[in-house]
């Protein structure tokens, strides 16, 4: 459960000019784009794996996952390393995004229930819309959006 408290910090990032945000407590680090090793028989949004200090990090292409058109990498493209799932073993996953913006503070009153479009009508995936001042960021719940099990089901079906 990602209930925002008094004022929480959120990392904002862009995908196809849309602004998204995720609670910083879930963000471990931000990496530059590295060559990805594609794993055979994996769905299109599993972009591949990279070497993160001796461990294998799976990388999800957020654009493909959200049904956006694929686009070539730019110098701003990077990988956000997030921790998924609570409990004993939080998993690490990398998320490929177009660019990373700043970290903002959002209080509870800055967040409205989601009135998203398209895929983001599903309020399960989107915690709410955060008012950044000059824009709105769709706040994502990484556990839901990037959950392994759901991905696995999707993968098996494809």
């Amino acid at each position, binding site marked *: 459960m990602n209930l925002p408290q008094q004022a929480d910090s959120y990392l904002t990032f862009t995908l196809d000019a849309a602004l998204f945000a995720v609670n910083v407590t879930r963000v471990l680090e931000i990496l530059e784009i590295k060559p990805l*090793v594609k*794993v*055979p028989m994996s769905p299109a949004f599993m972009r591949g794996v990279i070497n993160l200090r001796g461990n294998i990090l*799976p990388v999800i292409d957020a654009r493909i996952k959200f049904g956006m058109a694929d686009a070539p990498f730019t110098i701003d493209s990077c990988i956000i390393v997030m921790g998924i799932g609570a409990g004993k073993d939080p*998993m690490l*996953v990398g998320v490929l995004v177009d660019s990373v913006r700043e970290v903002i503070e959002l209080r509870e009153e800055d967040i409205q229930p989601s009135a998203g479009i398209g895929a983001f009508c599903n309020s399960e995936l989107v915690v709410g819309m955060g008012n950044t001042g000059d824009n709105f960021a769709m706040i994502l719940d990484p556990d839901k959006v990037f959950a392994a099990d759901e991905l*696995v089901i999707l993968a098996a079906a494809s």
Partner: protein
Amino acid sequence: MNPFEAKYTSEALELLADLEKLMLLLETHPDDAALVQQVFRNLHTLKGNSAMMGFRSITDFTHHLEAIYELVRAGKLKVSAAIINITLASLDHLSILLNGDKQIGDNNKHIHEILTNDIVTIINYSNDEGREPEPVALEGQSISKGEPLTIITDDAALYKRKPSIPGIRVPVERLDTMMSLVTELITLQAKLNVLTSEHPQPDLVAAAESLEKISTRIRDNAFSMCMVPVENMVTPFHRMVRDLAAELHKEIDFITEGTETELDKNIMEGLQDPLMHLLRNSIDHGIEEPALRQQNGKPRHGRIVLKAYCAGAHVYLEIQDDGKGMNIEKIRRTAIKNGLIEESDVMSDKELQQLVFVPGFSTADQITETSGRGVGMDVVRRRIADIKGQVSIHSTENEGTTVIIQLPITLSIIDGLLVKVNGADYVIPLSAVDICHEVSSVQLMNGFVQVLMIGGEAIPYINLQEELEGVYAAPQSHEIVIVHYGEKKIGLLVDIIAGKFQAVLKPLGRYFNHLDIVSGATILGDGNIALVLDTNKVIAQSLNKKIKAI
């Protein structure tokens, strides 16, 4: 907590485990003086250790138990079913005490008193010239005065009780740390190799080679330390088979073979539960009641065999019973009822049998507490998949059922062949490889069935460039890696073979759990990632595609 308590507890539990083993042997060899002496020794040691720690209740309880065996030693008592049962119950009670706070409290006071009374009763009876005492009913257990259960082991070693080989006890955490360090060493050594090849100097190259040789030896040595014989996990099985069979009024011989076969200790831990479950299945649903067996011309005693052996890069465990087997029609009907297959689906008997591993399947008429509910077999398969193993079931109605578990020998480091396919790096486990060859494009005879002539043999081959993803380039020449596929040999066409490599296997993670052609990944000396292929799965997949394309 007394700093020695941990040591005391671990030694005490070992003594109990040994005692349990001895009791099961004593049951079929009640007059073996050496066994009795060993039981007495263990109890005496346990008593002494407990006294030193000041655990009064355990000391006194063990003292009573020891007294029984002192009387047996002196010829004043004979080992009887009652004594064995009470001793086993006492061992259980002690085990619970040891794993807890070592004190008698409200929850174990009752059983403690009952057991103590029973033991004292037996001791007192011995004063009546060795008359066998009446078996006393222990709470929760039923005493069967019928035929004793026979537990035979095929391993002469178990009975002969090898003289204790000198060894030292090492905490498991230290072994784990060592394995971690060894894998880091291997990774670093691979990196050194890459650097050395970039800056070759004779002395450096020679030193790097020597380092590689020593690292390999350290690795193998470290692994062998973490390998444990299957024998070590077998005693609770004997116990469970004995107790459950008695409870269900069935007569069962439980035989173990090949238990000197060794397994990585982590793999072994993952096997305990699934094996227990499979054994319960055999006892509960497999072996029929003695009368029914006799009616069907089978011997009264059912037979369950647990067999372990090595073949190729795998260790196999089989559980074989000669019970009533699986009814194919029943499986088919249940599968249809539960929506697993359609009425119209055509499946071989073998395929139907594997359906029992699918979640939500159960044909047991009564969901028995021991092994019903249909949650059993799919969990078994998942637990075995967790340790990178596979399970299959083979059954003939009225003759019996065999469950075969295939396991990797070790989970962490493998010797591999580094290859490139479509520009990407892959590792093929050396254990699967037969031989490698260079092949020119001219040699590839293109037809429906791709076959190569190598050394006079016709070897079918698969083009990995087509099977795996990546940018297809059409090189002038390929190399071919010939691997074992069951009893056959199949060639795998790759761009280039880059050499041998010690791969530290890293799991890909839960995101790729469904994937079977890739069993993991490894980090190369230059930091790149190579995917480790499961050649059996790659070949199976390719064959399936071809068949479907017909």
